[in-house]
C-alpha cells in the first residue's frame, strides 16, 4: 500500500517542478468537478442566491425597514394598502418578508462566509503547525485552546459587547473596510463598523474547535508513510504541511466549515441580542429567525421562511464541498 503513496508523492513533486503540469492538473480537477452533477447544481443554486442578494434593491418594491402598523402577519400573496404585493407576507410590524429576506442575504452571507473563512484559515494554520511540529509549541497551543474552551462565553460576550457599546465610535476600523462593507451591505458606515467587529468576534470565538480538529487529523497523517518519505527526501516542514498535510486534511475541514456556516448565521442573531452586531430593524436571517420564537404557537411555519435560505446555503455549500473533495482525490475515478 505504501507504493501507491509514493506514486502520489512523485506526482506532487513533478507538479511543483513543472508549471505546465500544474495548470493541466487544475484543468483536470475542474473537469472532474463539473462531472459531479449535484455539485454543479448546488453551485447554480448558491449562485442564484448570491445573485438575488446582489440585486436585492431591484427585486422588491419594499424597503426592508418600511413598516405598517396594523398589517402584521399578512399571508403570502396579500397586498399592502397601496396595492403592492407581499410575496411572502409580512412580519409582526407589517414589514415585507421577501424584502427582508433578500436584503438580509447580503449581511448574513457576508458575515457567515467571512467569519467561516477566517476560522478555517486560523484552524488550518494553528492545527497543522501545532500538530506537525509537536513539542513545546503543541503543548502551549493546545493548553491555550483548552483554556479558552473553559472560559464561559456569555459573560465574555457581555464584556465585549459593553466595551463595544461604550467605545464604538472610537474603535479604529480602516476607512477602506468600513466604506466597502457599507456599500456592499447597503447600510450606514457606522453600522458597518459593527459588522466588521462582529466578524472579528465570531471568528475569535470560533477558531478553537477547528484547530483541534485539524491538529487531530495532522497527528494521524504525519505518521503516514508518504509524509515520512517526503521527510526522508529532505522536504522542509513548511513544504510538507502545505503540499501534503493541508490537502489531505481538507475533507473534514470542509464538512466542519459547511456545518459551521449555519452556526454563524444563527450565532450572529444571539449576539445582536447582546447589543452588538446587527440590530433590528436591519434584517439578518438570524435575527428574523429568533424574532419568530414568540409567535410559534400562532404561526408555527414562520421560522421556515427565514430558515429555508440558511438551510439552502449550507446544504449547497456542503454539496459543493463534496464535489471538490471528490475532484481533488486522485484515487477516485469519476
Amino acid at each position: 500500500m505504501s507504493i501507491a503513496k509514493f506514486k502520489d508523492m512523485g506526482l506532487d513533486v513533478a507538479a511543483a517542478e513543472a508549471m505546465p503540469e500544474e495548470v493541466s492538473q487544475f484543468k483536470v480537477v475542474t473537469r472532474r468537478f463539473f462531472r459531479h452533477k449535484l455539485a454543479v447544481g448546488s453551485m447554480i443554486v448558491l449562485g442564484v442566491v448570491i445573485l438575488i442578494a446582489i440585486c436585492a434593491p431591484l427585486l422588491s418594491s419594499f424597503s426592508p425597514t418600511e413598516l405598517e402598523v396594523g398589517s402584521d402577519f399578512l399571508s403570502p400573496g396579500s397586498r399592502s394598502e397601496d396595492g403592492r404585493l407581499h410575496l411572502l407576507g409580512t412580519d409582526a410590524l407589517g414589514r415585507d418578508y421577501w424584502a427582508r429576506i433578500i436584503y438580509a442575504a447580503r449581511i448574513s452571507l457576508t458575515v457567515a462566509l467571512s467569519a467561516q473563512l477566517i476560522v478555517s484559515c486560523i484552524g488550518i494554520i494553528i492545527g497543522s503547525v501545532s500538530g506537525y511540529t509537536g513539542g513545546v509549541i503543541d503543548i502551549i497551543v493546545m493548553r491555550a485552546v483548552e483554556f479558552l474552551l473553559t472560559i464561559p462565553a456569555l459573560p465574555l460576550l457581555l464584556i465585549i459587547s459593553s466595551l463595544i457599546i461604550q467605545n464604538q465610535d472610537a474603535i479604529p476600523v480602516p476607512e477602506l473596510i468600513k466604506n466597502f462593507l457599507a456599500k456592499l451591505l447597503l447600510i450606514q458606515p457606522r453600522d458597518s463598523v459593527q459588522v466588521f467587529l462582529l466578524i472579528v468576534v465570531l471568528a475569535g470565538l470560533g477558531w478553537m474547535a477547528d484547530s483541534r480538529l485539524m491538529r487531530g487529523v495532522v497527528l494521524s497523517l504525519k505518521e503516514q508513510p508518504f509524509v515520512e518519505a517526503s521527510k526522508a527526501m529532505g522536504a522542509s516542514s513548511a513544504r510538507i504541511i502545505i503540499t501534503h498535510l493541508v490537502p489531505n486534511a481538507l475533507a473534514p475541514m470542509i464538512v466542519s466549515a459547511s456545518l459551521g456556516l449555519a452556526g454563524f448565521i444563527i450565532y450572529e442573531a444571539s449576539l445582536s441580542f447582546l447589543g452588538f452586531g446587527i440590530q433590528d430593524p436591519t434584517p439578518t436571517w438570524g435575527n428574523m429567525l429568533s424574532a419568530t420564537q414568540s409567535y410559534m404557537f400562532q404561526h408555527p411555519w414562520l421560522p421556515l421562511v427565514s430558515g429555508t435560505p440558511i438551510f439552502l446555503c449550507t446544504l449547497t455549500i456542503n454539496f459543493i464541498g463534496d464535489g471538490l473533495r471528490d475532484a481533488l482525490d486522485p484515487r477516485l475515478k469519476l
Partner: protein
Amino acid sequence: MVNYLIRRIFQMTIVLFFSAVASYALLNLAPGGPLSFLGSVQTRLNSEDIARIRAYFELDLYLPYRFTRWLAGIPNGPLTIGGNAYFANNIVGCRQPIEESFLNESGTYVTRTIGCKEGQYVTMADLVGRKTSKGIIRGDLGVSWQMLRDRPVTMLITSRLPRTLQLMSLAYLCSILIGVPIGVYAAVKQYSKFDYVVTSFAFFGTSMPTFFFGLLMILFFGILCKNWGLPYLPPGNAEAIKPYVIPLIGNVDPGSLLDKVLHLIMPVSVLAMVTIAGWSRFIRTSMLEVLRQDYVRTARAKGLVEKVVIAKHALRNALIPFITLVVFTLPGLFAGAIITETVFNWPGMGRLYFDALSRTDYPVAMALILITALLTVIATLLSDVLYTWADPRIRLS
C-alpha cells in the same frame, strides 16, 4: 504513559487555575453585577446603606482577595502564628470608594475608583467573624446570593443534576445508537437516495434553531393532539403535578414510570435530533475517508465480505475522530442544554446556569463554570489518550 499522564495532569491544574482566575475576573468585571437591583428600588439609599449591601456581596474587598477567599477561604482574618497576629492592619478592601469620572479619548465619560473615603478601609482584622466559605478547593461551593439566598450552592446543584444527567445521557445514547448507523450507511451508499435524504435532514437539523423543533412538538403532540382527543404528550416538566388521562393509554399517576417516560420523549427527541444531524454527518465523512484508504481496498482485494470489511476494518478507523467528539459530551452531560430545558421546562443544570448568570448569582455561576471547566480538561485528556489507544500510529510524548 504514566509520565505523560502526570505531566498532563500537572498542566491541567495550571489550565484550570488560569481558567478560574479568568472566569472569576470576567464575571466580576462584566457589566451588571449584584447591585443592579438598587436602580429599581424607589427608596432613598444613603452611602451607608449601599456600603452595607456591597459588604453582603463582598464587593468591599478587592478582587484578588475576593478570589482567594472564594478559592481557598483565605484570608479570613490576620495571620496568627504563635498567638501573634500579623498583617492585622493590612488593607484588603474599602467600604465606600471614591469614584471619579473623566473624559476618555473617545469623548465619553468613564467612571473609575480613585480612592477610599477616610476611615472606610477594610483591614485583615475586620475579616474576623465574617461569613465565608471554606473555599471551593476544599469542597465548599459557598452560599447562593439570589437563587436560594444564603443557602448552599450544593443544594441547588444536587436538586438539578440527576435530572440533567438523565436527560442528557439518554439523548446522547439515542444519538449514538441512531447517528452512527445512519452515518455509516450513508457513507457506504454514497450518492444514493438514502444518502441525500440523510444529508438534507442533517442540514435542516443544523439550520433550524432548537426552539423551532421544541415548540413545534409542544404545539403538535401536546396541545393539538389533546384538543383532537388523540393520545398526547405532556408539554413540559419532568413529572406531572396531578393525575391525568391519555386516550388509549389510560390513567397516568404523577411520578410513575410511565409518567416519567412520557415527559422524557419530547426533550430527548429534540436534543437527539439536533445531535444526530451533526454526528451522522461527521461519521459519514470519516467513513468515506477510510473507505478510500488503501488498506480497505487491500482487504476487499483479499476477497473479504463487504460487511466484514466495513465492520472490522473501516468502522474501527472511522470511529477514531468520532471518539473525540463523543468525549466532549462529558461537560455537556453536567452542564445540560439551556434552550431545550427552558422550552420543555426541564428542571436541569442548563437552566440553572442561565438563571444564575442572568440573576447575577455569581457563587452559583462560578461553581458551575469551574466544574464544567474541570470536565472539559478531563475530556481533552481523555480524548488524547483514547486517540492513541485506538490509533497505535499516534505516539504520546
